[in-house]
């Protein structure tokens, strides 16, 4: 589905991504992990097409994204950005309808179909009752669901999420990620999601890509990647990994002192 080949990216002399290679399958959730500054967001931004200056190839079903124009790319890839700046005066519905941009003609006319798709996207994220509220009045969790609905309305087979839970509390983190998982299943979306929290990644990702200093250090299932030695080296902090008492996933516990 989505294939990253030899992708490198740098600002002037500072190299942010070094020779990244991986491939995702349809309907898979790939968690991108790594310490601060490891290049998670940069990778997401390269894939989404807003950092055109990378070297290497990013392709979807064999077609390089560099050959796609903005509209065509937006039909393939939708994005839930990190700490998205949101104009407070738009209503949730107006915001979600903007997700229909790749399908709207140059006159900017919104069709009945666009409205129906926007409604069903809001319904899928359980936010239909927010549709006439303005963004400025919504809570952090509600905003994040509206942005998720906007990405869904784009009807793109690939969805990128850049630390979508970073400003959410425990309940909303769990709700949002469960929702992403459900949506990935229902709509057979390919999801690439940058996450900070190792245990959330263990819980929700099918596979995990671990970035350190812009390099792909490990790629595989949570059991394969989230190992004590790998993580200790990646984060320069000793960790213990035990079996999760309730789920078939690893549970990562940072040690308290060096």
């Amino acid at each position: 589905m989505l294939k990253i080949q030899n992708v490198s990216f740098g600002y002037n002399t500072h190299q942010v991504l070094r020779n990244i290679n991986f491939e995702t399958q349809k309907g898979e959730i790939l968690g991108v992990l790594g310490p601060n500054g490891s290049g998670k967001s940069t990778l997401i931004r390269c894939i989404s097409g807003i950092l055109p200056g990378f070297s290497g190839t990013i392709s979807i079903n064999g077609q390089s994204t560099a050959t796609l124009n903005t509209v065509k790319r937006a039909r393939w890839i939708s994005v839930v950005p990190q700490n998205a700046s949101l104009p407070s005066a738009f209503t949730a519905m107006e915001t979600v309808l903007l997700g229909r941009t790749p399908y709207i003609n140059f006159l900017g006319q919104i069709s009945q179909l666009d409205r129906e798709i926007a409604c069903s996207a809001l319904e899928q994220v359980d936010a239909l009752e927010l549709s006439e509220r303005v963004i400025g009045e919504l809570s952090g969790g509600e905003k994040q669901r509206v942005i998720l609905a906007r990405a869904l309305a784009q009807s793109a087979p690939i969805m990128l999420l850049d630390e979508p839970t970073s400003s959410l509390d425990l309940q909303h983190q769990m709700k949002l990620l469960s929702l992403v998982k459900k949506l990935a299943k229902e709509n057979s979306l390919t999801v690439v999601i940058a996450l900070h929290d190792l245990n959330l990644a263990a819980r929700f990702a099918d596979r995990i890509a671990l970035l350190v200093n812009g390099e792909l250090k490990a790629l595989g299932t949570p059991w394969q990647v989230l190992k004590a030695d790998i993580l200790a080296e990646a984060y320069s902090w000793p960790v213990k990994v035990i079996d999760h008492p309730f789920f078939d996933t690893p549970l990562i516990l940072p040690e308290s002192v060096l």
Partner: protein
Amino acid sequence: MNKKFFPYLWVTFFLIAAIISSIAIGSVFISPLEILRGLFGKAITSSDATILWSIRLPRTILLALVGSALAGSGAAYQGLFRNPLADPYLIGVASGGGLGAVFAMFINWPYTFLGLLAVPATAFVASLGTVFLVYLFAQTRSDIPTTNLILAGVAVSSFTGALTYFLMITSTGELRRALNWLLGGVSLVSWSAIGALLPYLAIGFGVLVISGHALNLLQFGDEQATQMGLDTRKAKLIIIAASSLVTAAAVSFAGIIGFVGLVVPHVVRIFWGADYRRIIPLSIIGGAGALLFADILARVILAPQELPVGIVTSLAGAPFFLWVLRKGRNLKYW
């Protein structure tokens, strides 16, 4: 009442009231009934007919067009720059036009030049030239960062503004005329001015009205707009070109009229929300009405002397806007 069309009804009513008042009020009062009779070709007194057809009607139409140009492009610039302080003059149209106009006055160009009126023609060319210069300074290889545009606009405006004042100080003869122009003294009222203005406005308004969706996307920032499928560079270029075209055309004939382009879009936004697909057309209609009412004041305050309408838009517009701002202070309208 359909919620979608309700705002249009309001501003259209406002505009019609403004047009009728603008034609009716002046040194000679023409009753609205007479106006209607005159407009539909019925017999009215010949002095009324002269006033109607040669003075009031062309002035009303010209000012309505100028008001819509300023408010429409002001709305577009506020959206493009995501800045509530943006007005149609932000990136150099006014200062460039001012320099062009004052230059034409001071080198005593003949009144017409290659068949065009010298002052509006030079003002128009200088306006667009200045914006183009700002654009060249602001663009990078892959984008037009809006911060660059604002800063380049401020720098170039300050430079051309200084040149304008330099010209005014070093010569004496045309000072009053120049000042009048810079304050928005609409002096070149004629049917041919309207004819010259119309094609530019028709093109510009057409583009601006269909740019509403792109402006909505730009409110989320360039990155999100791109990710949702907008070619931001192209969209910005088109919006800047259309806004500059209508503003330059308006400034050429009416001089620099302040405040209308800043305030009308905000009033529209406070009343009817943040959707630019609505803000742009409503500002275009509302701006026409607003400038007409300001012009009526400009004509009657010191009658028979006429004030530059730019003074009135600020004098009357500022308190009005502060009042609206107080009324809407609980709304998240920006």
